[in-house]
């Protein structure tokens, strides 16, 4: 085995929460609001349901092949050559999606907090730290998630609690102004984020109770949905029509907080949340990429690949996009169909084929 570590199901729940929430609370509110306007919060409901279904597909697939990852078992289902192709797709996907994430976090810092600092400083810094975490193994990563995630969630609750007096409920009306279509359109951009449970195709084998994977994933997605709903509603209630034009509406929330002239300028809190959450997210995808690459190449050890892939991640995150407009255009308009195919389509097809061909352990 490349990875000897075991993580508990609770740790997996925290990892998933952190992985999805870290960037979704930054970038989703304005993207959803653009489509669904004041009904944006309703959009979270269908997308959460979608996320649960996607998660269950991934979990069912993983449970059929105990102690093996998708890189290893896809060959069993569709035959060796095609299995290799699928393995390569996932390896490249984990690298490619991570370049988006690194760039998002770095851009966020660059725009809001340190405009004069070159963006490469953030990329290199965060990837370097993540590389160190990954070389220490999956267990370390999971424990880190266990520490950081509750902190992130508490911070979000705190921000919402502090901004609560500013919410204007009138901004939620009229409900369903143009019917359900905009609401469903609004559910499209977050679908990408809510199916990031795809990381579990690499992690289920290392759960200490793989049979509980379904429950863990469903639990994680429901918690994420709840928080996303809360943030979306708060953003809508405070910013109203401005949400659509904001780059970082959640940060705006923190900037608006002004209680009794005493508690204000709390955005470093949210910055802390994002750097912590973003770091876990980047580490998780980084880990998946390294592990997938090592398994795909049948290596005995994955550590040798950590730094070279880190270099690739850093460099690509800098050179792929020239500016934030290109980045968000690509993430919300161009890549969703491709990513959704990889995140949900391929696992679904593999699952159906596995059932039809009777591959893998049948469900107990």
């Amino acid at each position, binding site marked *: 085995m490349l990875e000897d570590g075991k993580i508990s199901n609770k740790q997996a729940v925290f990892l998933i929460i952190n992985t999805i929430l870290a960037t979704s609370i930054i970038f989703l509110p304005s993207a959803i609001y653009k489509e669904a306007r004041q009904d944006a919060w309703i959009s979270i409901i269908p997308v959460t349901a979608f996320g649960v279904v996607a998660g269950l597909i991934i979990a069912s697939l993983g449970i059929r092949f105990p102690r093996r990852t998708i890189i290893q078992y896809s060959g069993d289902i569709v035959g060796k050559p095609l299995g290799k192709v699928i393995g390569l797709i996932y390896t490249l996907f984990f690298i490619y999606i991570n370049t988006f994430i690194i760039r998002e976090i770095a851009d966020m810092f660059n*725009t809001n907090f340190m405009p004069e600092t070159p963006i490469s*400083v953030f990329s290199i810094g965060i990837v370097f730290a993540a590389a160190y975490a990954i070389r220490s193994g999956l267990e370390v990563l999971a424990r880190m998630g266990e520490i950081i995630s509750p902190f992130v969630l508490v911070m979000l609750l705190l921000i919402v609690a502090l901004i609560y007096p500013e919410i204007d409920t*009138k901004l939620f*009306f009229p409900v369903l102004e143009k019917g359900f279509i905009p609401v469903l359109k609004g559910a499209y951009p977050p679908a990408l984020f809510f199916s990031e449970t795809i990381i579990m195709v690499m992690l289920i084998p290392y759960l200490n109770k793989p049979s509980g994977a379904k429950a863990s994933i469903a639990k994680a997605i429901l918690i994420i949905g709840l928080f996303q709903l809360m943030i979306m509603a708060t953003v809508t209630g405070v910013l*109203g*029509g401005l949400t659509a034009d904001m780059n970082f509406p959640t940060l*705006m929330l923190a900037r608006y907080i002004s209680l009794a002239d005493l508690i204000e300028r709390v955005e470093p809190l949210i910055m802390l949340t994002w750097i912590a959450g973003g770091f876990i997210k980047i580490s998780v995808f980084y880990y998946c990429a390294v592990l997938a690459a090592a398994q795909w190449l049948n290596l005995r050890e994955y550590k040798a690949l950590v730094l070279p892939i880190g270099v690739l991640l850093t460099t690509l995150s800098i050179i792929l996009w020239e500016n934030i407009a290109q980045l968000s255009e690509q993430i919300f308009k161009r890549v969703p169909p491709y990513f959704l195919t990889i995140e949900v389509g391929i696992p679904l097809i593999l699952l159906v084929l596995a059932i039809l061909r009777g591959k893998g352990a049948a469900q107990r």
Partner: protein
Amino acid sequence: MIKKIICFLLICALVLPLEGCWSRRELNELAIVLAAGVDSAPNNKILLTVQIARPSAFGGGGGGQKMAAAQENNVWVISQTGESVFDAQRYLEAKVSRELYWGHTVILVFGEQLARNGIRKAINYFSRSPNTRETIWVLVTRGKAADVLNSHSQLETTSAQSIGNMARAGVGVPVMLKDLSIMLASKGTNPVLPRIELTPSGKPQGPGMQENIPEARGSQQQATLTHAEPTTTGTGVFKDDRLVGWLDMSETRGLLWLKDKMEKGEITIPSPRESGKNISINIIRGNTSVEPFYDGQNVWFDVRMQMDGALLEQQSTEDLTDPRIFASIEKELNRRIEEKARSALEKAQLTYEVDIFGFGEAFHRKYKKEWAVLKDRWNEVFAGADVNIAVQARIRRTGLTTNRISKER
């Protein structure tokens, strides 16, 4: 051995970032901008005025040496023209030895001329730059913003803080940058901004503190011994981003009622029994609900207002233990509140023909389909709409006494 050398090199490399980072900000390298003013300048340029805190004048140390009210001016006010706000700011840095820092800016004032030409072009920098805050209070002045900034307060350390405190206390119709952005983004309402002006207010309380009075400055005459304090004198009414007119303080009260922003304040009514005597009521809470109606042709609104108040001053001698007198005072109160609301409403509907009350938003919430048709000519629709106002005022308390103590029997 190699490992040790690498480790040593890495440790050495760690020293490099310790000196700081690119975007560091040291307090002694910043010029803290307390107030910003934007005026229009010839050739489509803008004139940016900033009020910068002078750290030496602020020094908290020195024990009791420093007087409560300022003996010297605590701020430095300078102006600069530029193609844009950011452009002007860049030019300013040729004069200011430190980097302008916008994180603590309290107020943003627009000059009248600029406001009449449209504030959108001046506001963008303040909402886009990550350094400024959305909690800045935005105001408009009659005349030039530069004059308002070039002032000091008798009570607060700077005039910017004085204006900011007034806005926070809810004088006039306080508007934050974010509220302004929301109003500008909406088709169902038009922005309003509080009007700030310098008005003669008592004698200057220190040497060298007479520079405030614009008339004195303009005509080169000897400064008079009157201090001019920044004062909230009403409200600027905008049509989209262009200033179209003013409301005075009384009409501003009506505006607050109709916007459901009435939180505290005072209403004075004539005594129902004795002419020439007045009764003043302190508003404890006010509440307004607006319901729009549409029959396919006409739009009308039912406005219901509720008020709880406490009677705090009585010049007349009615028996306030008599419920009938109470009722007649409340009736007078209803009439007076409606009158104030009507005066603001008439100005908005007849004189300026803009919806500044957010009635369009209320309409949008109730008639979502019809709104799509009406929204582009909403101001016209609003100007022609009937508004029914029903007020229900209640006096809950009469202060510490029931009847007037010194009765003229």
